[in-house]
C-alpha cells in the first residue's frame, strides 16, 4: 500500500469539499473493497476522505411508501433492522448474506452500489425493487444508475447520500454464491412492485440487468411455473474458472424460480 492522506469528514458537505481539494482523492465508506485494492497497489489515491463521521449518512427511516437507507448504513444494520424486516424482509435477508461478519459490520450500502461490483448483492436489490439513488446533486433511477463493470452514473465528485426503496407487495432474493468468495455467481431479486413485476439479476453479466422475459411471464402469472421453458441467453454472460456462461444462464432461471417460490 502506498502512503496516503487521511481526512475524516464531519458531514457529507465537508466530505465533498475535502475531496474536491485533493489531487486524486477517494471517498472511504466501509473500505471493504477499496482497502484491499490499495493493498494490492491496484489503486493508489493520494487522499482518502472517510465518510464515517458524517452521521446524516447513517440510518434507516420510513418515508411514506418508501424505505430510505442512508448510504453509510452497514449491511449488519440493515440485516438486523426491525424496520427493514417489517417493510422489505427480502432486503434484510439479502444484507445478511453479504460477505462475512466483518464485511457486514464494516461494509455499507452506499459503498457497495458506488463500487458496482458485478457480483455484489445490493445492485439486484436497487434494480429489482426499483429504488432511487439520492446523491448530493440529484436523484438517479435504479435503471439508470448501474452502467457497466465497476461503472455507475455517478460523477467523480458525486456522493451517494441515501437509497429509497419503494416498498413492494412481495419480494425475495435468491443467491448462488461463489463457493470460494461467496460473492454472487448469480443473484436474482424478484419483486411485485407498483411498477409491475421486476426481476433483477446480479453476478451473471457485466452489470446488474433485468430479465424482461421473466418479468412479462410473471406479470401474467406470478408463480414459479410461469418461468418453465424460459431462459436468459448465455450470450454476453460472465465466464470464469468457477462458472461458464451456460451455467450462469441456468442459474438465473433456477434462482428466479426459487425467488418467486420464496415470495
Amino acid at each position, binding site marked *: 500500500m502506498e502512503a496516503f492522506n487521511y481526512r475524516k469528514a464531519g458531514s457529507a458537505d465537508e466530505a465533498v469539499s475535502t475531496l474536491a481539494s485533493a489531487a486524486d482523492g477517494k471517498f472511504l465508506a466501509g473500505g471493504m473493497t477499496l482497502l484491499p485494492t490499495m493493498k494490492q497497489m491496484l489503486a493508489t489515491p493520494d487522499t482518502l476522505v472517510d465518510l464515517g463521521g458524517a452521521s446524516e449518512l447513517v440510518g434507516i427511516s420510513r418515508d411514506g411508501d418508501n424505505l430510505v437507507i442512508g448510504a453509510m448504513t452497514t449491511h449488519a444494520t440493515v440485516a438486523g433492522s426491525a424496520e427493514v424486516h417489517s417493510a422489505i424482509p427480502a432486503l434484510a435477508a439479502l444484507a445478511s448474506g453479504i460477505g462475512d461478519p466483518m464485511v457486514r459490520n464494516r461494509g455499507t450500502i452506499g459503498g457497495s452500489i458506488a463500487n458496482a461490483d458485478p457480483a455484489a448483492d445490493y445492485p439486484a436489490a436497487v434494480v429489482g425493487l426499483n429504488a432511487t439513488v439520492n446523491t448530493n446533486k440529484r436523484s438517479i433511477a435504479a435503471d439508470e444508475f448501474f452502467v457497466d463493470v465497476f461503472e455507475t452514473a455517478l460523477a467523480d465528485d458525486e456522493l451517494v447520500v441515501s437509497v429509497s426503496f419503494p416498498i413492494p407487495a412481495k419480494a425475495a432474493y435468491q443467491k448462488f454464491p461463489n463457493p470460494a468468495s461467496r460473492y454472487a455467481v448469480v443473484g436474482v431479486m424478484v419483486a411485485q412492485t407498483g411498477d409491475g413485476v421486476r426481476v433483477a439479476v446480479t453476478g451473471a453479466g457485466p452489470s446488474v440487468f433485468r430479465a424482461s422475459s421473466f418479468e412479462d411471464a410473471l406479470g401474467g402469472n406470478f408463480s414459479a411455473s410461469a418461468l418453465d421453458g424460459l431462459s436468459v441467453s448465455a450470450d454476453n454472460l460472465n465466464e470464469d*474458472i468457477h462458472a461458464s456462461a451456460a451455467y450462469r444462464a*441456468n442459474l438465473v432461471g433456477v434462482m428466479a424460480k426459487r425467488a418467486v417460490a420464496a415470495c
Partner: protein
Amino acid sequence: MAAAEPLNTGIGESVTRVEDSRFLRGHGNYVDDIILPSQTYAVMVRSPYARATVNGIDTSAAMGSGGVLAVLTADDFSAFGGLPCGWQVHSKNGDPMTEPKHPILAEGAVRHVGDPVAVVIAESKAEARRAAALVDVNYTEMSPLIDMQGAVAGSAELVHSDTPSNVCFDWELGDEAATEAAIAGAAHVTRLELVNNRLVPNAMEPRAAIGDYNTANGEHTLYTTSQNPHVIRLLMGAFVLSLPEHKLRVIAPDVGGGFGSKIFHYAEEAIVTVASKLIGRPVKWTADRSESFISDAHGRDHLTTVELAMDANGKFLALRATTLANMGAYLSTFAPSVPTYLHGTLLAGTYTTPAIYTNVKGVFTNTVAVDAYRGAGRPEASYLLERVVDLAAIETGIDPVELRRRNFIQPDAFPYDTPVALTYDIGNYQATLDMALEKTDAAGFEGRKAASAARGKLRGRGIACYIEACGIAPSNIAGALGARAGLYEAATVRVNPTGSVAVLTGSHSHGQGHETTFAQVVSDTLGIPIENVDIVHGDTGKIPFGMGTYGSRSIAVGGAALANALDKIVLKGRQIAAHLMEASADDVVFKDGQFSIEGTDKSVGFGDVALTAYVPHNFPLETLEPGLEETAFYDPKNFTYPSGAYVCELEIDKETGVIDIVDFHASDDFGNIINPMIVEGQVHGGVAQGVGQALMEGAVYDDNGQLMTGSYMDYCMPRADDLPNVTVSNHVTACTHNPLGVKGCGEAGAIGSPPAVVNAVINALGDYGVKHIDMPVTAHKVWSIMNANGN
C-alpha cells in the same frame, strides 16, 4: 498403604488439551509474535513471470528508499550452496534423478511465479515493502512449461537448461512382465484416467523466519515455522551455509499448522540467517497470504492411468498405474519420495492383488514446487485404487462392498508381504468396513434414496477402504531407498528432584496436541498427574537430535522413543527403590506411582525415588550413577499400517449440481489410542481437507503460469458450513512392533475421504452413465455433465 486415587490422565483417556488454554486465550508464541531488540524486516522481491531470464537487477532506487538497510541478490549468496533435496530416487535404468540447482535467490533465471529474486531489508515492513517495489529487475519473458504432458514431450523446452529433459526421474516398482501377462489374460480389465488435483496447503499461520546473529559468540539463531527444527539445522547448516551445529540453533516455537508444508527447508530461512550476520541485526520475514500461495510447496498434482485386471469372479489379478507427478520448478526437500516410495508402495491397498506394476515420471514444470501434503503419496494411491475398484464394480455388476470383500487380505494372513515391497504387520479390513456399514445404515439406503428423489435430489453412497504406511522406517531400509536422513526419533525423560518430569522430544507439535498426548504416556507409566509433566519440543538448543513430525510419525516413533526412555527411568527407579527398601531390584514392582515389594507392605513413592536420585545420601553410588534422566533413540522395525473404511452419503441438486454431504462416517484402525478425543479431532480435520480436495480445492494455473487461484477469492477452502457432521468409530488391532501398539492417525482422514466422496458422487449420477469426474467435483462440473449432450 491406601490405593492411589485414579488419575484419569493416562492412556485411553480423552484428556482435554493442555495447550488449548494458551491458544484460545491468545497467549501462543508464534514466530511472528517474537520481537527481538533492533529487529529489522525482510520483504522478498518475487518473479511475476513463470519463466524468464534475469538480465540484470538494478537495486539503486530501492537502496535509496527510506529506511532501507540492504538489498540482496544472488550475488550476495554466491558463497553458499543451493537448497538440498533430502531424498534421491533412481530411475528404472539405474540413473540417479536429475537434481538441478535450487538457488537461494534466482541466478540468471526465474522458473515460477513467486520465485525469489531479491530481498529488501529495512527498518520497518512498510519501508521494506515500498523499496521492494523499486527493485528493477530486467526480465526477458519466455513461454512457460505448465502442462505436464507438454513438458515431457520430446520437443519441449527445458525448465532447467542444464538438464537433458524435464523428466526428473523415471521410476518403477513391481513386476512389469507378470502384470502385463495378467492383464492380457484377464476376464475383465477396468481402465481409468484420473487427475489428483494440485492443492495449496494453507496452514492457518503463514510461514515466517527470524535470523538472529550473535556477534559476541558467533552463534546464529533461526526462529522458523518448522515441523522439524533439527532437520532444518542439519540441512541448512551442513548443506547450504556451512555452519557447524554448535553455532546454529533452530527454534520452531508454537506453529499454526503445517500439513507437510513446513517440513521443508525454504530459501527464506537461509536468507534471514545470512542477512542477520551481514547487517548485524535480527531480520524477520513473515509471508503474507498471497505470498504463501506462490511460495509454500503445493501438494498432489498427479496425472494417472490405472488398469485393474480381474477374473470372472471379480478376483483382482493385476494392477498397473502409470503416473506423471509434478515436481514444480525445483526439487523441494522430500518431493521425489512422495510419488514413489510413499505412493507406489501403497498400491496393494487392502487387497490381495498378486501382480502390481507402477511407473512414475517426476516432471519439472514452471510452477511452485510440489512436495508432501497431509498424506503425501498415500492419498494419491488410495484415490486411484478406490476409484478404479468402484468403477470395476460398476462395470462387472458386482456390488462394490462385495467386490472389496472378495479381495481383502484376510485377518489371519498377517504378516502379509505385498508385491510392492511392504510387509503389513496386522490389520482387520473387514472389521472397519462392517462397522462403517452398520453405523451408516447401509440397508436403509434405498429408502433414503427414494425419499431424496421425491425432493428432487439425487442421492449417492460411496465407500472407500484405505491403508496407509506411517512412521517411515527403518532408517537403513529408507536409506537404501534414497533417504538422505535417518528416520528414528529421540526422547529424553528428565525427572526433576521433586518428581515432576520434563520430556524433551524431537517430535514437534503444530496443532497435534503432543503436550497432552505425550504427557498422558508419562502419566500412565509413572503414575503422576499430567500437571507434573512438561513436554519440551521445537528447540535444537534443548532437545536431542530428532526428526520432527510428519507422516503420522509422532506417536508411533516419537511416542515409542518416549516409552523406551520411560522404561529406562522405571528400571533405574526400581534399583533405587530396591536400595531404599533393602531388597533386590528383581523383587520390586512399579505400579500407580509406587515401587513396592510384592507380598509385603513395603513401598516407596516415585517422588521419594526421584529425590533420592538427586540427593543421594542413601544411594548405591558404587553401582549406580545419581540422577534420574534417560534418553532413548527409537528406530522402528517397520512402518505402521493404519487402515479403515469411510462411507459418504450425499445429495445432488439436479437444478444446480450442488452437492450436499448428508452423512459421513470414518471407521479407522489406528492401533491403540492414547487420547480418543484428539484422535477424533485429527480425523475430523483430515476429512475436512479430504472433502476440500474432493469438492472444492484446486490450484489452477493459466497457460502463462499465473496462479488463477492465488487467493481465497478463487481458491475454495472448505468452511464449517461446507462440511458434514463426521462420525467416527474405531477397531483396534495393536501394532505388533512398537512398545505402545500405536499406528498414527494424522493423515487418515485426508486419505480415506476423497475416494469415498467421489465414489458417492458417481453413484448418485448412476442414471447418467458417468464413469468418472475429476476432483474438485464442483457443482459446475456436475451440472455440466448432467446437461451434456445426450443427458
